[in-house]
């Protein structure tokens, strides 16, 4: 089942993104162009109205300053400079007698002069928009008094504006036809690129699901969110792989460690059943079996204890603990063992220091560390334990002059079932340090470790008191 097969192409990320982007772009472009066209139209309208008004005002001025003759002259030259089907003028007096007029053939629909005179109310020029089928374009017509009893009506088609608008419209259409598909294409390509990263991650996920735990997503060099996604994904995949590897190793170790006592029990029983003659042989076999059973049981319990300590079980049973006393007791506990092994046990414990914690787990943490130190220190060696207050916490150091831990093993000694002794022949189950660290961490602290091979190892426990 390949993930991408389930994605409908119409619903794919890049298609949908392109559609959305294209539509949005189209609507916005349409709206802004419409706005621009309307604005230009109204500017042109206003400009033309202004021009007509100015014409009237100029003629008024001309009449006042240079007389009627000059006005006629000016108007006549105006008539000559314009096409009669796009321009007209009518000059008449208050009795309705025509003084001057252009060719009105195309403007036959104009109202008679007398009707105009009735409308005239004040001195302001009157502007109206005329849209008549006889004309090719909408026109603007102005009517005003330019001198006492002398009126002028002047009209002009808005041909120029319409030409400008036509150009703008053509330009708009070209823009639409070119820009929208182009933008959509770019968007689609970009979306495709972006989703390629996502597709890569999801195909990597499918591969991992199918068991290729080493598969990683290719990370684009772009450094964007998609690259970040791929990187995060890879980090997660790596963590899963290492956890699985760790678990696999742990299971192997457990199986090995469980198998050894079982093998011994089996061997004891087999030998006894085929060879034993007297009751003492049987007694001894049963005793050995009991011991092996206890070892097995202890190992199983320890595994569960580590899991519980790591899960923070026991945190609910915390109380004020005299950690100094616990440490002293632990040292007393191991004194006979140290003596037997010919190891000097040196104790320097600052008295009556208190932490808030789980007594049994702390006891066990201390015992594990001392046990560990004694186990790996040869005869004549020295194990020293000191406990002191430091800043906001208690520092416990367990130092031995033992065999040390190879540098390669340092990061792994706290792992469950890990033993530097790879033959796993040493006594112990490799859980003590895991348990100790889990306890230290459950108390808000930690355990660190320094080691020089064949010289010494120092475990330092830090327990915060606040």
């Amino acid at each position, binding site marked *: 089942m390949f993930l991408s097969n389930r994605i409908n192409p119409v619903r794919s990320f890049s298609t949908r993104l392109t559609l959305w982007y294209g539509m949005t772009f189209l609507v916005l472009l349409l709206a802004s162009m419409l706005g621009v066209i309307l604005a230009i139209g109204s500017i042109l309208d206003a400009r033309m109205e202004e021009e007509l008004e100015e014409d009237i005002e100029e003629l008024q001025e001309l009449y006042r300053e240079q007389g009627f003759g000059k006005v006629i002259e000016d108007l006549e030259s105006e008539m000559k400079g314009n096409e009669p089907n796009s321009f007209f003028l009518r000059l008449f007096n208050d009795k309705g007698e025509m003084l001057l007029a252009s060719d009105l053939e195309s403007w036959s629909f104009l109202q008679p002069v007398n009707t105009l005179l009735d409308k005239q109310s004040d001195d302001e020029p009157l502007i109206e928009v005329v849209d008549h089928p006889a004309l090719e374009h909408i026109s603007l017509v102005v009517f005003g008094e330019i001198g006492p009893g002398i009126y002028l009506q002047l009209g002009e088609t808005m041909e120029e504006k319409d030409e400008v608008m036509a150009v703008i419209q053509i330009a708009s259409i070209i823009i639409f036809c070119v820009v929208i598909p182009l933008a959509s294409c770019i968007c689609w390509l970009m979306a495709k690129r972006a989703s390629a990263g996502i597709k890569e991650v999801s195909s990597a996920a499918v591969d991992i699901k199918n068991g290729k735990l080493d598969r990683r997503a290719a990370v684009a060099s772009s450094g964007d969110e998609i690259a970040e996604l791929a990187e995060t994904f890879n980090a997660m995949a790596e963590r899963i792989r290492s956890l699985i590897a760790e678990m696999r190793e742990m299971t192997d170790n457990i199986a090995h460690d469980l198998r050894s006592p079982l093998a011994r029990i089996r061997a004891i029983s087999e030998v006894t059943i085929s060879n034993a003659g007297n009751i003492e042989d049987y007694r001894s076999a*049963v*005793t*050995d079996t*009991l*011991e092996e*059973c206890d070892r097995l*049981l*202890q190992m199983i*319990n320890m595994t*569960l*204890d580590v899991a*519980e300590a790591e899960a923070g*079980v*026991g945190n609910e049973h915390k109380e004020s603990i005299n950690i100094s006393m616990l440490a002293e*007791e*632990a040292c*007393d*506990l*191991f*004194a*006979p*063992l140290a003596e*037997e092994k010919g190891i000097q046990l040196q104790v320097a414990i600052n008295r009556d220091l208190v932490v808030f914690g789980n007594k*049994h787990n702390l*006891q*066990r943490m201390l*015992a*594990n560390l001392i*046990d560990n130190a004694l186990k790996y220190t040869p005869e004549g060696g020295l194990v020293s334990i000191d406990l002191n207050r430091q800043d906001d916490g208690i520092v416990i150091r367990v130092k031995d002059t033992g065999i040390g831990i190879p540098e390669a093993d340092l990061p792994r000694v706290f792992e469950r079932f890990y033993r530097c002794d790879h033959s796993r022949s040493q006594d*112990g189950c490799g859980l003590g340090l895991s348990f100790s660290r889990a306890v230290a961490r459950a108390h808000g602290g930690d355990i660190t470790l320094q080691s020089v091979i064949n010289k010494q190892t120092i475990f330092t426990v830090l327990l915060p008191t606040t």
Partner: protein
Amino acid sequence: MGASRAWLTEMKILVIEDDLVIADLIKKGLKEAGFIVDHADEGLTGISLALSGDYDLAIVDLMLPKLDGLSIIDLVRDKGINLPILILSAKRSVEERVSGLTHGGDDYLTKPFSFSELLARVKALLRRSSNVVEPTTMNYRDLTIDLLARTVSRGGKKVDLQPKEFMLLEYLLRNQGHVVSKTMIMERVWDYHFDPGTNVVEARISKLREKVDKGFDTPLIHTVRGLGYVLKQQD
């Protein structure tokens, strides 16, 4: 604990356990220790016996056919019967233990267990429930210990013991004739609920032997290989 032997012999214990091998071990051991034992191998028989009121203590497995252990405890407590109950279970999680005890169990023992551990717990529960006034002195043969003065004498001769040695001897004496395991000793004498992997018990036992047994014809402290230690006079 010669005096307390009497109150233990007539006591009746009910064992509700479906694993017959385990049940046999418990039955035999308890009978040997002087108790009268009845056994039920499933929950319904178990509860009817438990409700009869004939018993001084019940040992109840949690996983049982027909009626589970927790329901048995609930029913017994609902009837207001004051029966000390020791829970047996293969589950060892803290939650399981807490749930068993909040249901009204008096103690909790995880399988697998050693019989000596079970016996010690049974005795402790009976001692607690029977309101027997603790004797202030205990003796076994020519060994006497005074719990108040914390002194020990054997054959009229005073024996000087360290506090831990005294606690160890007291514990052995309380369980006279029965083996106590190293784990049990670590728990009762040192309050260590795990095996720290030291030889401290062996070391203390050998010190104790030196002080208690040396110079006497009959040694009282014996090692039982694979199981632990016992205080008794070998015949």
